């Protein structure tokens, strides 16, 4: 039997989770106020991911940086590798909110997309 304490980061509630993994591989969770708590805990304890938000360089625009985000969670250990790739990109207008800036970054299946119009 294993016990873990986590803070759920799904939403601003920040529930304090107490997770028990039983001998036969069952998951017991306490402290969550919605069902997303369990899926968060399972992911966080096996393959944690994070949404990455940052900017990319812009040319030929009044705006000097374009805000971007990952379309889904990126494996935690690949965040800085992803940053290094994103930092090499320069974009120019026109760009629409949601446009893909980098497709399938680091083979994660996750895209880096624009967070605003340019």
């Amino acid at each position, binding site marked *: 039997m294993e016990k873990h304490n986590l803070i759920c980061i799904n939403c601003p509630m920040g529930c304090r989770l107490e997770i028990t993994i039983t001998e036969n591989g069952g998951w017991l969770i306490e402290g969550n106020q919605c069902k997303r708590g369990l899926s968060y805990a399972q992911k966080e304890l096996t393959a944690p991911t994070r949404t990455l938000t940052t900017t990319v360089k812009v040319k030929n625009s009044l705006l000097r940086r374009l805000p971007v985000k990952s379309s889904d969670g990126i494996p935690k*250990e690949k965040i*800085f590798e992803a940053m*290094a790739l994103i930092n090499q990109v320069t974009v120019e207008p026109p760009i629409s909110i949601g446009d893909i800036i980098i497709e399938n970054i680091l083979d994660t299946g996750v895209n880096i997309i624009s967070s605003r119009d340019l």
Partner: protein
Amino acid sequence: MNDLYDIVIIGAGVSGTYIARELSRYDLKILILDKDNDVANETTSANSAIIHAGYDPKPGTAMAKFNAPGNLMFDKVCKELDVPFKRCGSLVIGFDDHDKETIETIYQRGLTNGVPDIRILNHDEVLEIEPNLNPDVKLALYAPTAGIINPWELAIALAENAIDNGAELKLETRVTDIKKEDDSYLIITDKGNYLTKYVVNCAGVYADDIHNMVAKPSYSIRPRKGNYYVLDNSVKNLVDHVIFQAPTKKGKGVLIAPTVDGNFLIGPDSDFIDDKNDNSTGMDNLNYIKNSGLKSCPSIPFDKVIRSFAGLRATSDHEDFIIGEVEDSKGFFEVGGFESPGLSSIPAVAEYVVDLINQRHGGLRKKDDFNPTRRPVIRFNHLPQEVKAKLIQKDPAYANVICRCETITEAEIVDCIHRKAGARSLKAVKKRVRPGAGRCQGGFCGPKVVEILARELGKDWSDIPYDSSKAYILTGETKEESGGENL
């Protein structure tokens, strides 16, 4: 070949710039040197910003000789140079019989020093004109000629006017040595050497160091530091006069002073320090100021403090100004130990120093084309509606408000960069037109002012400093070097 000057002035504070401006009336080749990247960057930029009436100095001292006459010369120079100056008057307030004795002594001194219109007010009269003062106040010495000014604004205006009249200014030029050669002095700096007939030493807290480069050591400066609080200009009607406390054995007490920009200053304390670079504030010092200030005026809203700072006074072991030609170095003139009331005295001191140079030179020739005025500074926020509308029509940059706390426009900032002795740093812009001096302290306008400075000076944003060239703001563009280690 060394550049040859008639006069080199060392130090571009209010004394150096004032003397430069007065000398620029004459046919002379003048050079002002300063180690900093802006004029008025040391003692001139951090003090009580008061023009004292002149009752304080002991009769017979140089301070007594110059203060009261100097005070009366401010209206003219401030009008000529478009520098805000207000004769708001001052009160020295007392709470007991001991204070009463002190105030009577100061009153007599004021009469001896020739301070006009001073009188002693009783309890009712004091509270009548200053209702927010501690009701325990017994009496006060009232001096209507005392005034308030931004000393750095005056020095900047003086420098600009001196340059307009032919003087040269070299900043970031540190004097490292001075050599006497026959009839002249060789000024050695980290940026080259200058040969000059006369030298005026206006180096503030460093005046003794400069003096000792050419002359026998005759005095030393050990600065006294003073901490201050600044209140937001949303605080109204706290006091209308500069409020001093009667000095006691325990200390001088702090003053409360309105500023020409509508803020209030509370301070200073007084501590001798050994490091002439040390302008750090201290918690104990600030607490002392707070308590002492509350004694004069119990309703000071300290939750409206927008800033605290400390400044140095160039106190010499002579306990007086040291003004004149140096005995063993003819042609080397001294404005040393120039602590309070130096600012108040400077117009009279400058006149005196110019007279000494005139005598030494055997008569200076006045220029026909000396222009005593400076192109007026547009202070958009203080103008009537119709004038604002016209300005915007003429230059739309007046419609671009950069500093929202003080309503300062892009046009005003651009102007202060392109004037003579113009701004090169964020702090220099703040000293001239005040973005960042308000309650947000540059939070909103800082990036915009950096952008304007970079654009107008043709520099990269990263090359715009906060203050000295070493006080960088930005370390470079993002994305130029990649991030840290993996998690």
